[in-house]
């Protein structure tokens, strides 16, 4: 901008700004879209269209999967083990992938929540030294931004090290396989961690500082304040983050393929009950859908649709739970902010 256009300060009060008056249309008492300028009308229409489009896509996916899924979904599919057969009628259901999804989700979220809550609490309540806080912050940002396939590859390299031999199948020569529910669960926790972290941090930051001071003023230590006041206040935020994170874990494929083996059935490893399954490989609904899609080796699209529908139900159900938590906490008067899905 030309500097000379700026008037010197001593020029006195500015004359009132005169803009050419707009064409006076038919004056209306109530503003309505017909009184708007045409550019505004177009913008408004575009916003409407964008909203409707997103809605239509979402509804389209659900409806199509429902149509296909209900067409092929039989209760028996949910309760029978899958089998590799040439004859489609003998390949069974997807009980194993369903159990695999649940197991992996629970494992991942159980690892992610304590880690994320602890990190978020430290960032908000302590964050000393400041440089370390900055590093932690960007560390979590990096995890959030890393593609899941990269996380999977990194996990494979990591868990094939000797010291992690107890987590997965180890061959006689000492070569560690690196693929198991344990290793996949560890990496899956990284998928959920940023979401739990972000929602917990947001909740803690929303607590006004005088609430903390009220606790200190009653002679409580910082630790007691965090444990008895702050963390209970952000329960709803933690649950919201956890539910969103579980949805992400349930929907992830790359880590399942690389780190879980994406086998058709659960194949336990070793002899310790319980740990056998965790140490073994398996598959989830996502890998089952992938393998049964025309792209995979199973090529049984009907079953892929049925499994995809079940997966969709799980994820939509989790989102519903998020909504429920947010609403019930809003009712009880707790301040909480809904964290949008990434």
């Amino acid at each position: 901008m030309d500097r000379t256009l700026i008037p010197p300060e001593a020029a006195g009060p500015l004359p009132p700004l005169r803009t050419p008056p707009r064409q006076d249309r038919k004056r209306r008492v109530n503003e309505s879209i017909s009184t708007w300028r045409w550019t505004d009308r177009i913008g408004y229409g575009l916003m409407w269209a964008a909203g409707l489009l997103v809605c239509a896509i979402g509804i389209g996916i659900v409806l199509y999967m429902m149509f296909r899924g209900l067409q092929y979904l039989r209760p028996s599919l949910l309760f029978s083990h899958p089998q590799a057969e040439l004859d489609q009628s003998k390949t069974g259901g997807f009980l194993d992938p369903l159990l695999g999804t649940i197991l992996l989700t629970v494992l991942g979220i159980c690892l992610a929540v304590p880690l994320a809550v602890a990190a978020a609490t430290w960032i908000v309540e302590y964050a000393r030294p400041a440089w370390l806080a900055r590093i932690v912050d960007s560390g979590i940002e990096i995890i959030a931004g890393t593609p899941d396939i990269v996380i999977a590859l990194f996990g494979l390299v990591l868990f094939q090290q000797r010291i992690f031999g107890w987590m997965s199948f180890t061959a006689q020569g000492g070569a560690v396989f690196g693929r198991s529910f344990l290793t996949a669960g560890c990496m899956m926790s990284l998928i959920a961690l940023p979401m739990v972290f972000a929602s917990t941090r947001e909740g803690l930051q929303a607590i006004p500082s005088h609430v903390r001071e009220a606790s200190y003023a009653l002679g409580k230590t910082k630790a007691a304040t965090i444990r008895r006041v702050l963390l209970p206040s952000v329960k709803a935020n933690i649950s919201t983050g956890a539910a969103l994170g579980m949805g992400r874990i349930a929907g992830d494929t790359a880590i399942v393929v690389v780190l879980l083996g994406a086998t058709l059935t659960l194949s336990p490893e070793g002899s310790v009950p319980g740990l056998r399954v965790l140490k073994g490989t398996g598959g989830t609904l996502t890998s089952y859908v992938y393998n049964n899609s025309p792209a995979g080796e199973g090529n049984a699209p009907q079953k892929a649709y049925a499994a995809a529908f079940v997966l969709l139900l799980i994820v939509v159900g989790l989102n519903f739970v998020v909504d429920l938590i947010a609403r019930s906490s809003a009712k009880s008067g707790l301040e909480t902010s809904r964290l949008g899905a990434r």
Partner: protein
Amino acid sequence: MIERDEEQASAQDPTDPRAEMLPPPVRRIRLDAQPTVALPPLTDAGVDADGRAPGASGLPARTARATPAGRERMTLKSLSVFYGDNEAVKQVSLAIREGEVLALIGPSGCGKTTLLRTLNRLTELTPSARRTGVIRIDGTDVDDIEVTTLRRRVSMVFQQPNPFPMSVFDNVAYALREQGAKRPKKKVLEPYVIEALRRAGLLDEVKDKLDHPALRLSGGQQQRLCIARALAAGPEVLLMDEPCSALDPKSTEVIEDLILELRQSLAVVIVTHNLQQAHRVGDNVAFMYLGDLVEYGPADQLFGNPVAERTRDYVRGAFG
């Protein structure tokens, strides 16, 4: 913290545009004048309940005071508090006695809240804050008392009602539950919780809903719950930072009555922007301006016949 700093900065800057937008009449205050501190001797101020200043005749009636001033609970000797280089409280000496209400008044950013928060060492939470001078409670330097113990003895109520997100019972019991040690059973705590709620005048309203979430109470009830919570810790001194400024007149009245009742058993220090309130509840009033303690004395005298010029200007609404 940041807010307060800004507040102070703006209050100390006479060229601040916001200061010039105040409604007339704005009288110039001689900022460079020697502080006209009019301190009565620390030992007998406020004792004299009957000898109210003659200038008080034009003032509205106050609640009758029958309590003789008790012994000195807290003593402040040339207390200064700094935020960075900014001296928020300058060389203040005061005494806080049992059985009296000390009201701190003054314009925004004059250091009253800082002074209040220093009494239970809450200012230490502000990284840039520094303190010089001596604060004694019952003759012991507050720095020699473990900070959690001190804050149990000198409890505080805040401007915003801030009950914790738990039940009414747990809010009050929170102060009672010692940390670390074994948590006492609900049955053991119950009489203490009931007693604290009764003292805060809240028992009748909440006795059927002790298990309800505290955040469902009304604003005035929440503030009284915060007072109950502070009382449950068994304090000797109760600090109140504008406890009524977020409340409606009716709740304010209830809390003022409560303060007058509480002062019989403990020392109350209240910060307020409301001069009428300071006059209604305060036995002694301290007027602070830009960090200085300008005048300190019995409420009637300070409002009716102030000694210092700045106090006169302030209580007549000339600035603030």
